[in-house]
């Protein structure tokens, strides 16, 4: 009874969706997951993570043969959304579209003692993006070397803005301060937007952030790009040196987006989901996502586990070295 009603609603929704031209009627393959998949984003709609999840949800629906719906569960600095997936039924129909914050928040808070690497089931790293060190033109430094020299000559004078306390942007700034042995003042904002506005106005001196939406200000000279923060040069900016090249080998601050499953998600479902993700990658989609600054590349679940473990070590080290503590 209950099932038939919800099926009917589903059918109506599907029909309505097709009538509205929502495209991609899922091919009902027999190897499906037995129902619609909810892809949880631990942020309010509209942000970069949410946009990516929504971009991927349609092709993923087609690849999996199930409707994939993005569900926003903001709150608790991503912990609310993460917990909702962690404790969901391990049937592959509740997934988390996670980011660096999925790791960082748990390292910093140790909430309910879950381990984001061991307890969530890694499915695939989906996209990565190096950040960029950008500065206001009034800062007398065009390279990382000059920034370091300037900051050493004027200790504590450089203001570095970030999208928030303990965000990847914050950690990346502290990493730079730590390896280059310079003293910069961290100024947190609530979100990257307001921080960028203060950088444009010249109140903040530097910011380590995604190049999305910023490129044009660099081209017009309103901001300048000092370096990117990946282990290698960014495919979208091959002419820009990395921080590592400036004499800090091993410097690596990448933002990533990855799909996590609930606790104890069986291997065969993980494999099916991973395959579905690989299937959605087309050259066209890759190009359009690269245009937004991200590299779309699906990892294997094992690669993801190794990547997360390594990232967690880096973050934990920086956090204990620089003494970022939460009361």
């Amino acid at each position, binding site marked *: 009874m209950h099932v038939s009603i919800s099926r009917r609603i589903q059918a109506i929704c599907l029909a309505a969706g097709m009538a509205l031209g929502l495209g991609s009627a899922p091919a009902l393959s027999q190897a499906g997951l037995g129902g619609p998949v909810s892809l949880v984003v631990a942020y309010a709609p509209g942000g970069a993570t949410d946009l990516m999840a929504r971009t991927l949800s349609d092709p993923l629906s087609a690849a999996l043969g199930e409707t994939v719906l993005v569900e926003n569960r903001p709150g608790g600095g991503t912990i*609310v959304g993460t917990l909702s997936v962690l404790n969901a039924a391990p049937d592959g129909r509740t997934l988390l579209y996670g980011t660096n914050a999925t790791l960082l928040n748990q390292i910093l808070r140790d909430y309910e003692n879950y381990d984001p690497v061991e307890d969530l089931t890694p499915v695939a790293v989906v996209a990565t993006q190096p950040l960029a060190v950008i500065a206001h033109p009034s800062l007398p430094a065009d390279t990382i070397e000059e920034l370091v020299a300037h900051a050493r000559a004027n200790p504590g004078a450089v203001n570095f803005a970030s999208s928030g306390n303990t965000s990847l942007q914050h950690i990346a700034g502290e990493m730079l301060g730590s390896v280059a042995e310079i003293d910069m*003042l961290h100024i947190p904002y609530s979100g990257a937007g307001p921080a960028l506005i203060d950088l444009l106005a010249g109140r903040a001196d530097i910011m380590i952030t995604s190049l999305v939406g910023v490129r044009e200000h660099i081209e017009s000279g309103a901001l300048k790009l000092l370096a990117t923060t990946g282990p290698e040069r960014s495919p979208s900016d091959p002419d820009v040196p990395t921080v590592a090249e400036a004499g800090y080998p091993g410097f690596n601050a990448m933002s990533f987006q990855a799909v996590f499953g609930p606790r104890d998600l069986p291997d065969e479902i993980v494999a099916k989901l991973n395959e579905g993700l690989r299937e959605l990658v087309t050259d066209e989609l890759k190009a359009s996502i690269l245009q937004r600054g991200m590299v779309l590349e699906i990892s294997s679940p094992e690669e993801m586990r190794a990547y997360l473990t390594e990232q967690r070590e880096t973050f934990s080290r920086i956090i204990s070295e620089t003494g970022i503590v939460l009361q």
Partner: protein
Amino acid sequence: MDAASVLLGNIALGLGTALQPENLFYCALGVFLGTLAGVIPGIGTLAAMSLLFPLTFHLGPTAALVMLAGIYYGTTYGGSTTSILLNLPGTPSASVTAIDGYPMAQTGRAGVALFMTTVASFVGASIGIMLMMIFSPAIVGIALQFGSTEYFSLMVLGLVVAATMSADSPLKGLSAIVVGILFGLVGLDIYTGAERFTFGVPSLFDGISIVALAMGLFGISEIIGSIRSGESRVAAIEKVSMRSMLPSRDDVRRSRWPLLRGAGVGSFFGTLPGTGGTIASFVSYAIEKRISREPERFGKGAIEGIMAPESSNNAADQTAFIPTMALGIPGTASMAMMLGVLMIHGLSPGPSLLGNQPALFWGLIMSFWIGNLLLLLINIPMIGLWVRLLNTPYNYLYPAILVFVCLGTYSVANNTIDIWFVILFGAIGYGARLLSYPMPPILLGFVLGPLIEEHFRRAMLYSRGDLTTFVTQPISATFLALSALVLMLSVAMWLIRTTRHAEKADGGTAGQ
């Protein structure tokens, strides 16, 4: 002359784009859904926009943007409807409208109030659009001048202007603001990550939902109050004719200036990312009350008290596009979603959008006009329907409202804790009502308190702890001087009033 012809050319280009059948259709769809989302208490702009967001993948960028923008400003139109009819703000920025709108409805003037707020919304939005068309670059220049130091002083001015909003007892008004600030403190300290009043509950890390607070304080408390008194408080409406909706000549006379002042205040706040319509509507209401010759009429159905805030929050909605479109940097989540639409379609949001995509940019702006006209057309015929809603017996109406409030509040973050908060704030609101504490200052404290703290501390970081930064920066110093002036004026007024009262009382006893 040359600039004027360029502008005319742009207008023609924009109209040509906006009037294409596809864009026109999605504009109409957007404003219609926006109105609905506004009318249904709790369902906010963001929830409505994210519902339709998947559709934007399959539309052209212009149609997608026009539709989402339509939802965005359409919500603010609809938000005042339930404020006026049921004392239940459809959106937080319409809370102020309830102060005078609801008394108007209770005295049988709901039709007039709804008609006039629709007009106010239209005029406010039009002024906002006009500023956007002509002064965008200049406005962006000014907005960039506003750092945390300036924001702090501006918020202080806002608080000082609005602090005396409450009618009877300034002390009660002040304590309501403090209570609001306390609720606003809940969550993580953005500078240290320290937890405040979260009791270890992750759902509280990002603070209490403003929707839950507004719905509980204003709406639920009203419903509890009505049920306790055992009768429907909504006024019986005889019949809704076009005539009963039309304002009297006196209404029009009183509305003119508040309308324009509201639009000015709203346009100003709209351009400052992070402040927005709610603060603008409070400030413009407070200004009207302050400069009115008969401030005692406010809170009892003064038409100025609905015109100013409605004109203000709609103007703010339009001018909020200026920094977003001109800099390509979103100030709010809704704006981020609109820029996201551009990115999905491979367009880079930013200063060159206007140069590279003039049809899109001007098409969007001209769609604002069309959307606002459509909103007039949608809203005015609906007034009769809304007013007749009040004839619904309250044993059907109230449960229905409660369902919508719960749905709407839940839709913001998909978290049941917000529904518990609606109940909690309903109880607090009912208590405040019994003790005749004013509720709008609670909301104001809730919104302004955390902003004042955030900007004060950031200003201190930038100045390395030097407090003089607030008076050495010219813009900030001006706001603080204005605040001092307003404070001195109100103290002087209070002195004059009390001495007069004393004289009267003396005269009275002498006469006996």
